């Protein structure tokens, strides 16, 4: 038989089953789209950051950075005058929001155009007729942007537009354009606005300070004499970093975040693969009779296998292409959510370019095309290897799969056992954690057929009570066709389990944070010097001002804090030098601590560390932490580990007097204010605001409640992307189920015909089909509950703990269980409607003919 004829038979089959065909196609496309979208999002965020570091630092090889994110501006004069280093450029950095696009962050770079030669190529050079130096330096709202950015904001030269910063509106006048000789820079410049350094200092309230100084050093060698000369000029705590290291360390920072995103993407991938497998298996299994006949009339095994595989390849290719396009579009939406999270958690970045890498493309193609082909292999092998007459018989398939079922169950249990061993032994390896997660999911799907039989066996007496024969028949039918229903239910179970685990994880985390906030926010007001930029920890509060706060009537007690980055054996550690009244002790929730920890904490120089810090550096109570102080390297005993969900890097907390002794630093950046009675709250607040007006820099006064809300806002934004993924998974599962169950029901045509012929009413037919769908949905969803819970447990205690350092107890909220069941059953019932309608309208005689 020629291939053309064979192809025609396939084509005709597809045209007779348009629903089936479309849903298969969509199933593949969706699976690919989600994976590709997550991948693109992740990569774009990472790449944007690396690019923005390069754009901001220009051609600099090194960066001088202060410990608290700022440098005294005099340092620049010293470097210029004393070392003679010409390639040094000061920078003042901050970010603003456009009035009309509040979600978009713009970086303000305050540059000294006289120092920019050879550093940032896009800053117009002197003598460039493009730059009106007089206007740029003297008009305090003059700004330069790239032409592309100006075009995108419809901003014309000489015109003004409004931006927001520190809750104030500023009007910027477009005074010129940045040059963009390189394509990469051009893209990155889309979120960069350049100002004169003086104007930027005034705007960002950073007078006297620089964000960093960029250098082009003649040698990367730290032994070069230049390096030592530079080091001797640096103020205490400032460091010279290699620009390339900075890109690295920032990548490390967001690694945890991207790992989490990757875990979700992997889950989606597994669900996607299952859906594709499900879809392809159906399209082959359904055609067994046709394939059997083809074999019977002389089509060879190889020809048949080739036919189906080429079909799968075409379908896979088509679906993948659609999926790639869909994923790319989806990524645009997701990127916004991710960059918001990154802005909240790490640094200002505006993801401009959606990076579609070859790797992502290959991943999508591999999943879509190869996944489709591999999923087709088992049914193809089965169809082509069997003897024609056996292929024609349905009962033969089920008999065969019954034997496999027990084997699968044993195998599945083995997989799960192995999964737990792997997870237990994984220590800090994320790859092994992922492997464990994957093994667990595989194991659970292999066990599903056996679990289904047990559930059906338990359900049968129950169903018999209210639905008699029809219901029991529908239920038992699931087991009778387990080789097909099993696959559909596995996909459903996996999808719903993922849905539950992701939702449950976020819910549990949020609950924990809420609980932690309510116990740790004990003071009535929190006051911090407004951060002048992302890098800065803010200004120092003057002593007279703190005394004035203490004197406000109604203020009972105040606590103070200074955050300092300190070099240690574990890299740079954030040290909190804290003082608080006795009742402030309650605001710390301990994971573990030594006996009489507080007493020791006050008496001897010692530290409490936060949980993420402990996890990151594998420290426990009783260990010692060595910190670099102006007095030299000092070792502090660790008295306890406190829960903290505010920072990922973690911190070490030290009693204020001990800190002052070793660091000779009595600066204060933040206050916590305890009132003697809540009645004074309003009066104290207005007093605080009055006092704040006397400071040269803005301070932020937050009430207990507003700080709590602010924190939860950030939390919710952080998990926005997770929510989006959860929704996507739900959609994938929904569509997948719809396609699988619909195909399954349409296949029962002959069986229904027989039943109709022996007296089943159309009404009963409806009932039978809808009941079967509901049962399958319910079985899948109920199996998803334990599987999803275990999955959530893995995500929380293995993956999250390792990537963020936070631990929290898992709780599964009832509303999530309800949602999961509703999605599963709704998809199942919807899937039943069309087949039921079609079959009830077909005459039994026609239905009984196999090729109707």
């Amino acid at each position, binding site marked *: 038989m020629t*291939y053309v004829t064979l192809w025609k038979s396939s084509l005709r089959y597809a045209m007779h089953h348009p629903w089936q065909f479309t849903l298969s196609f969509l199933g593949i496309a969706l699976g690919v789209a989600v994976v590709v979208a997550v991948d693109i999002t992740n990569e774009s965020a990472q790449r944007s950051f690396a690019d923005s570091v390069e754009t901001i630092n220009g051609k600099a090889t090194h960066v001088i950075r202060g410990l608290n994110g700022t440098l005294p*501006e*005099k340092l*620049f*004069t010293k470097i*210029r*005058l004393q070392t*003679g280093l*010409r390639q040094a450029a000061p920078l003042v950095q901050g970010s603003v929001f456009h009035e009309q696009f509040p979600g978009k962050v713009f970086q303000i770079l305050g540059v*000294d155009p*006289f120092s920019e030669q050879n550093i940032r190529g896009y800053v117009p*050079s*002197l*003598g460039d*007729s493009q730059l*009106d*130096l*007089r206007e740029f*330096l*003297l008009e305090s709202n003059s700004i330069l942007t790239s032409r592309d950015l100006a075009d995108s904001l419809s901003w014309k030269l000489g015109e003004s537009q409004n931006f927001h910063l520190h809750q104030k509106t500023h009007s910027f006048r477009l005074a010129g354009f940045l040059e963009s*000789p*390189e*394509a*990469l820079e051009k893209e990155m410049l889309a979120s960069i606005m350049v100002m*004169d*350094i*003086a*104007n930027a*200092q*005034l705007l960002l309230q950073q*007078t*006297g300070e620089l964000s960093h100084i960029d250098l082009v050093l003649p040698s990367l060698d730290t032994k070069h004499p230049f390096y030592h000369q530079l080091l001797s000029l640096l103020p205490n705590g400032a460091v010279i970093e290699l620009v390339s290291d900075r890109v690295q360390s920032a990548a490390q920072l967001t690694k945890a975040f991207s790992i989490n995103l990757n875990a979700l993407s992997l889950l989606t991938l597994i669900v996607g693969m299952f859906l594709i497998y499900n879809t392809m298996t159906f399209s082959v299994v359904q055609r067994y009779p046709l394939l059997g006949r083809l074999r019977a009339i002389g089509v060879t095994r*190889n*020809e048949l296998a*080739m036919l189906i*595989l*080429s079909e799968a*390849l075409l379908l896979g*290719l088509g679906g993948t292409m659609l999926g790639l396009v869909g994923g790319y579009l989806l990524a645009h939406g997701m990127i916004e959510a991710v960059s918001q999270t990154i802005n909240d958690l790490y640094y200002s970045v505006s993801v401009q370019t959606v990076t579609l*890498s*070859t790797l992502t*493309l*290959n991943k999508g*193609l591999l999943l879509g*095309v190869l996944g489709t082909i591999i999923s087709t292999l088992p049914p193809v092998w089965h169809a082509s290897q069997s003897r024609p007459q056996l292929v024609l018989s349905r009962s033969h398939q089920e008999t065969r799969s019954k034997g496999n079922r027990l084997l699968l169950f044993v195998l599945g249990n083995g997989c799960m056992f192995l999964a737990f061993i792997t997870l237990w032994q994984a220590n800090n390896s994320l790859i092994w954690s992922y492997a464990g997660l994957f093994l667990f999911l595989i194991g659970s799907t292999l066990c599903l057929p056996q679990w289904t039989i047990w559930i059906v066996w338990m359900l049968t007496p129950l169903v018999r009570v209210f639905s008699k024969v029809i219901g029991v028949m529908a239920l038992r039918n699931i087991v009778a066709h387990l080789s097909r229903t099993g696959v559909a239910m596995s996909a459903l179970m996996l999808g719903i389990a993922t849905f539950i685990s992701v939702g449950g994880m976020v819910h549990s985390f949020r609950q924990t944070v809420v609980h932690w906030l309510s116990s740790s926010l004990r003071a009535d007001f929190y006051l911090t010097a407004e951060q002048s930029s992302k890098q800065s920890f803010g200004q120092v509060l003057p002593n007279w001002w703190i005394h004035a706060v203490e004197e406000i009537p109604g203020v009972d007690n105040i606590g103070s804090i200074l955050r300092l980055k300190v070099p240690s054996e574990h890299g740079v550690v954030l040290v909190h030098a804290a003082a608080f009244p006795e009742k402030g002790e309650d605001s710390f929730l301990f994971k573990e601590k030594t006996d009489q920890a507080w007493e020791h904490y006050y008496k001897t120089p010692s530290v409490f560390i936060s949980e993420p810090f402990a996890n990151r550096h594998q420290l426990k109570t009783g260990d010692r932490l060595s910190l670099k102080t102006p007095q030299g390297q000092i070792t502090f005993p660790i008295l306890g580990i406190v829960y903290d969900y505010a920072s990922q890097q973690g911190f070490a907390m030290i009693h204020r007097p001990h800190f002052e002794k070793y660091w000779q630093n009595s600066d204060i950046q933040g206050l916590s204010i305890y009132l003697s009675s809540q009645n004074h709250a309003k009066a104290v607040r207005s007093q605080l605001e009055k006092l704040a007006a006397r400071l040269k820099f803005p301070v932020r006064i937050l009430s207990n409640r507003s700080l709590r809300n602010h924190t939860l806002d950030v939390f919710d934004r952080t998990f926005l992307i997770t929510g989006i993924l959860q929704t996507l998974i739900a959609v994938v599962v929904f569509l997948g189920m719809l396609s699988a169950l619909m195909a399954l029901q349409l296949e029962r045509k002959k069986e229904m015909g027989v039943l109709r012929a022996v007296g089943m009413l159309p009404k009963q037919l409806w009932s039978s089909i809808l009941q079967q769908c509901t049962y399958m949905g319910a079985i899948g969803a109920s199996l998803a509950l334990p599987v999803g819970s275990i999955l959530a447990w893995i995500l929380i205690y293995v993956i999250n703990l390792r990537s963020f350092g936070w631990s929290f107890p898992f709780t599964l909220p009832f509303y999530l269980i309800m949602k999961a069941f509703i999605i599963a059953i709704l998809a199942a019932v919807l899937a039943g409607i069309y087949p039921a309608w079609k079959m009830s309208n077909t005459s039994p005689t026609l239905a009984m003919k196999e090729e109707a």
Partner: protein
Amino acid sequence: MSPGKYFFLFILFIFSCPAIDWIPLAEALDKIVISESKKPLSVSSVLGETTDESFEKVLKPRHFKFPEDHGPHPAFQNEWWYFTGNLMTDSGRKFGYQLTLFRNSLSAKTLRSSSSWKTNQIMMGHFALTDIQQQKHHSFERFSRIALGLAGAQARPFRVWIEGWEVQGAAGENLAVTLSASQDELSLQLSLVNTKPLVLQGNQGFSQKGSQAGNASYYYSYTRLASSGTVQIDSERFEVQGWSWMDREWSTSALEKNQVGWDWFALQLETGQELMYYQLRQKDGKPSPQSSGVWVPQNGTPVKLSDDKVVIEVLNTWRSPSNKVYPIKWRLQEKSLGIDLVITPYVRNQEMTTSFLYWEGAVKVQGQQMKKSLQGRGYVEMTGY
């Protein structure tokens, strides 16, 4: 071919497509940009032309006061401290140098701001060293705002600097200063002391540069500064001695429309006289009637040179690497004093490759006055070519 092979090839094709990495290719194509050559510009257009009418203008002669007038005059738009000189080691190895510090005001009114970077005062520096034996000319440029001590000018104590390039010391009617500048592998350290009194150029230091009122500058010079110190090139250090020339000028004027540039000669003769002459060139190639100069005999009483008595003849020209044609040999004659000099650069390529291109370099002078032979060295500046 069997169907299996077709299938295999098809799969191979599909998976090899994305492996062709088209992304770097696209990036590489984007990076090809045609580089534009730098246009020549004048000092004020580098720092921005002004129409600010509130700057003070040079309208009439003034009474100079020292040391105050060695310091800055921010009410005027432009100002410079111009040092050039010819130096020699004991063994006769010759060097020429130039260190110029330009001050420019972007606006006339004084600024007040809480940011120390805020300023309307800009400094530009040019530093050049001519290694005559090696026939090499090195030139550097730097800009800085007059803020945070990065650059500045002050009368008491006298100091003018842009980052590490600096002139400072005792300055009153007489000058005893040190000059230091270094960049890359070059370094110059000199002590300068005037051996002749200060010369007020033009009309008592009021130097008319154009036909319109205000197109003038205040201009004085130290025509002979005894100089000694060191020149360092790479790791080689030379003890040098010689003569320097300092020009001081400030104004709010620019060249007039029909003026395209100038040629400036500052010549120091071995017999103890100096000659300064600047010739403003018009669009039609003729010298402008505002061209002017001075002859300083040994006793120090200057004689004004007027344009109708001076004839400058170009004897040779040279095309620079930047494709400009400069005169490269001149004959300068002054009829009333009977001066006849031939001026030849020590090195042809002394073009300043700075933001605006000009030629400034050490020259050798040979000639006679009333049959008496004259020898000397000096500096020539040519702009607007």
